[in-house]
């Protein structure tokens, strides 16, 4: 089975798909609830487009979009899914929220969703499995072949700080302000198989690496690698996993449009060659993005100099603009650009809500109001 799984299934170039891990909150004190099975069961009676799946703990649910050519159909579908999920949640008197972390839940209260795989993860990783109750957005970009996927993975690694800073929405963890814009990725880093793809240059070389790891009994499938970006051969995609789940599906679609436009630029223009320096500087840059968001300072491995993360993103937006237009993502990226210039992120919005209301219960409440479309972010 795993032999076949690692055959890279080509897919339509630059197609895009999104997975969103979401929070299920109770309506009483807005702590995480445990109603994933009921919610999924109810949605099975009238399935929305895409797919709704369980995640590692009973407080999480994962929504998958279908495959899209660009931003507009993606955001339309995500809205349809959101409305269906919101409606089902309301019948069960639970709430759904975006955001990379729940502001005040205690990981000791979490319960593993009872499937064979999740129970295995709990027995292997112990408390880390429960701490893994964090919420990410995964963006899949279609690739024509395995070699292209390896190339895209290496080049996108340079842009990982962009994805982190743009999506950052986990300033609070376990009832505390972490001082980070995205605290979620610190939790991911604790896993032994997190990190980055090894510096291989072709799908063939990657397969050799994978077979070696499997031969040692370290992994069974690609699922066991918790890399920031990983090839997904069975979908024929490269999967970017560093995004915090944004507070709205609209923001999720903007981020997907950015990744898609950037990937089109990388695969058609081939502007850069994979560089080991990207990985030498990787953890520094990633930390800067997590800690300071758009205000972070990264080191550009190719230009060999420091750069403001905000400026770097704005420059990249300008470079990929023609590709965005080709894909029909022009307006979306213009909107994203305005947000970056204004310095608006989900993390700063959440901190603003906390200042205004004074309690993290209120943050979680307003956070879920926002995702379910009951309130809007004031411009």
């Amino acid at each position: 089975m795993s032999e076949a799984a690692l055959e890279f299934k080509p897919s339509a170039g630059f197609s895009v798909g999104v997975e969103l891990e979401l929070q299920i909150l109770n309506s009483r004190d807005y702590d995480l609830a445990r109603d994933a099975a009921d919610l999924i069961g109810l949605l099975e009676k009238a399935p929305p487009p895409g797919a709704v799946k369980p995640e590692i703990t009973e407080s999480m649910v994962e929504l998958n979009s279908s495959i899209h050519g660009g931003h507009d159909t993606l955001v339309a579908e995500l809205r349809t899914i959101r409305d269906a999920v919101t409606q089902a949640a309301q019948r069960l008197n639970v709430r759904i929220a975006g955001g990379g972390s729940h502001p005040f839940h205690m990981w000791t209260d979490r319960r593993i969703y009872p499937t064979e795989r999740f129970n295995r993860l709990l027995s292997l990783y112990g408390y880390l499995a429960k701490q893994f109750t964090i919420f990410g957005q995964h963006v899949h970009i279609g690739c024509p072949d395995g070699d292209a996927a390896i190339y895209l993975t290496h080049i996108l690694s340079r842009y990982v700080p962009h994805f982190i800073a743009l999506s950052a929405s986990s300033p609070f963890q376990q009832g505390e302000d972490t001082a980070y814009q995205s605290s979620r990725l610190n939790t991911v880093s604790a896993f032994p198989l997190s990190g980055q793809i090894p510096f291989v240059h072709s799908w063939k070389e990657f397969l050799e690496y994978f077979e070696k790891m499997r031969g040692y009994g370290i992994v069974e499938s690609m699922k066991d690698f918790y890399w920031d970006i990983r090839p997904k051969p069975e979908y024929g995609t490269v999967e970017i996993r560093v995004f915090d789940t944004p507070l709205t599906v609209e923001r999720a679609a903007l981020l997907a449009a950015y990744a898609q436009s950037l990937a089109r630029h990388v695969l058609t223009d081939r502007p850069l060659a994979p560089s080991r320096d990207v990985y030498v500087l990787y953890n520094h840059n990633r930390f800067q993005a997590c800690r300071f968001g758009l205000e972070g300072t990264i080191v550009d491995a190719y230009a060999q100099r420091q750069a403001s993360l905000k400026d770097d993103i704005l420059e990249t937006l300008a470079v990929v603009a023609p590709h965005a237009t080709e894909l029909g993502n022009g307006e979306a990226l213009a909107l994203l650009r305005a947000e970056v210039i204004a310095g608006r992120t989900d993390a700063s919005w959440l901190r603003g809500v906390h200042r205004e209301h004074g309690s993290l219960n209120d943050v979680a409440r307003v956070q879920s109001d926002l995702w379910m479309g009951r309130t809007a972010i004031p411009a």
Partner: protein
Amino acid sequence: MTQLSFLPPFPFPASPLVLFGLLLLAGVVGGEIVRRTLGLPRIVGYVLIGLALGSSGLNVVDAGLVREAWIFVDIALGLILFELGRRLDFAWFRRDPWLAATGVLESALAFVCVFLALLYFEVKPLYAALAAAIGIATSPAVLVVVVQELKAEGQVTERALSLTAINSVIAFVSSTMLLSWLHHEYRASWATVVLHPVYLLAGSLALGYLAAMAAMALARWLGKTERGHLVVSIALIVVTVGAARTLELSVVLALLAFGALARNLDERHDLMPVDVGWFGQLFVVVLFVVSGASLKAGALVTGGALALVYVLARFAGKSLAVMGLTYFSGARGGTAGLLCLALTPMSATSVGMVHRTAQLYPDFGATLAAIVLSAVLIMELAGPVAVQFALRRAGEAARAA
């Protein structure tokens, strides 16, 4: 003799503090023995130790001490009903009308089934109706406490709590009205018959409303401090319980209204969600020990067989409605069956009412108290076990009780 005048008089006057502490210790020991030897919820142990110490057993905790301890029982009930009220979300009933419908229908069918069953066994209609009305309510105390002990969370838990809030109110209203009717049978004036239920209902609701308004205003003034809001909530709960007693209103209805209104009228979300359960657990132990002590095992001899009929008819009525309507609420398969079990506990608060009625109308006491009290006795012991089983089987319990 005068040299020893500093010594306290003997026998010692009853000290509420010593009584509270000792009842607490007795409950803890009883609860732990039951949990270790039988694996049952601690509540069962509290009740059993109460039965053993009460008039049915050693008579250490006699009727006089039970009256002394009543203040602690009231505080416990106040905390529990406030908590139940806080969990009541009116918006949920709008979004899922089937849930509200289930609450009304299961109350109605429980009443009808018990009423008909008792009629069949030739109980006088008015008495049968009053007994049936008492049976409408699920015990908020048993359900809330087992939920807290198990840290249970999920659809069975939340639905059982909401249904219990509904059936508690319906039980209160219908038994109050029937009591008035009973007064009339015994030639009370029409003014009493009409005004007493109105006073009870409106007064209790108004008291709950005032408490809720005070809680929100104080919370707004304090700002978001968890400790402050906790103290304000507890203080107002105690005040409301005391006021309800003084004004001879319903503690149950006033506190339920306080909790529910403090949540559902708080549009600005001024009052933080506070956890009074931790504070309440001390009083809860005493509540169940005293409940056990005030039950009369002897009643089983006279009322046992009919009590069994009563319990079964009540279960049948509730289950019929829950099994019939829960599907429309979009709940998972299996939820309905477990909900039926979770709704079985019977309220010991009805004991007080039965006693009072029995005092007023000795005829009633002779014919019916035995049945209702036996049923309560059975359900005080079986109820917690049923709730624990249901919540565990639903996968909603976070830990062993």
